[in-house]
């Protein structure tokens, strides 16, 4: 378990450093600024789905953390 955890964190660190040269100039962010290009386009739908799947499956979250638990799992 410790190895896997270390692996995850190392992966993120690598991504962060290796990404120093990737990206766009500030004036090239027109498409990225669109509503439909945001990582979460519909927060209510994301929250509802998270709640449904939390109640019916053994995994939860991933994207961030939701608004809390309920007496269903």
């Amino acid at each position, binding site marked *: 378990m410790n190895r896997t955890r270390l692996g995850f964190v190392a992966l993120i660190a690598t991504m962060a450093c290796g990404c120093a040269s990737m990206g766009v100039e*500030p004036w090239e962010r027109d498409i990225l600024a669109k509503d439909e290009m945001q990582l979460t386009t519909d927060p209510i739908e994301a929250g509802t789905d998270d709640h449904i799947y939390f109640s019916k499956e053994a995994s939860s979250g991933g994207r961030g953390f939701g608004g809390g638990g309920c007496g269903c799992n």
Partner: protein
Amino acid sequence: MAGGGATREVRIEAGRGCLIGQFSAMASPCEILVETSDVDEARQLSELAAAEAWRVEDKFSRYAKDNIIARINSAAGDSIDVDAETASLLDFGNTLYELSDGRFDITSGVLREVWTFDGGDRLPSKEAVKSVLLRVGWHRVDWQSPTLRMEVGMEIDFGGIGKEYTVDRVARQLREASTSSALVNFGGDLAVTRPPTQRHGWHVGIETVSAQGPPAEKVIELRAGALATSGDARRFLLRGGIRYSHILDPRSGWPVKRAPHSITVAADTCTQAGMLSTLAMLEGASAELFLRAEGVRHWCRR
């Protein structure tokens, strides 16, 4: 336009997601917000803007002793030949005079001799206003480009259009100089050079200018075009419970009655925005009606 006084230097500061170049010109704090993290680019654009602002200020300030305005205002009835830029401003003043049926008049500057808007209650006498009014009136001016001849005692004052005109010129120069979006802000008269890419629009706060209640702020998102505000802020007179706005009607020599405290107009250029807000103020109580009839985006504070 006032001249001199403030030092002529450009400072660069960090904003949020932008860099800001700051300087003083035309008796206003000026800032150029550039959507960039490159300090050299921000400095280059800000210095370009400041140079143009100071050029126009020096050229058309009525406080200078030897510029074109000084020569025009001391001509004492003689003809003066003016350069292309001055000619275009005089043409514009002429068009605005006809468009507004005389309410906008670049010869009305002399009225400041009898009116001092300091928040006090001293109104000039009717005779004083009448006598100054004899020296006001674009219809008295003989303008055949490039030759200008005015009656003795008359003056030309570009104060009502100078700032907005300069904002537009600066915006165009910055658009040609860089692909970064910039917001040109000369004391509340502002224009966007090109649509920003890191945000939906530049966020501009409009202050409500109300004597009662706390100042509130409405936020406007400006993605293209310009905003200009006409407002009395601290420049008005209060007597007998009636507020006299500093916007004077050149035909009567007296302030417009029942004008809003401030009008902000959004238009394609700062010059148009400024003119529309001034014309709307001159409508007094019908300011909003006028703006609505013109189909112009506006915010009035009464």
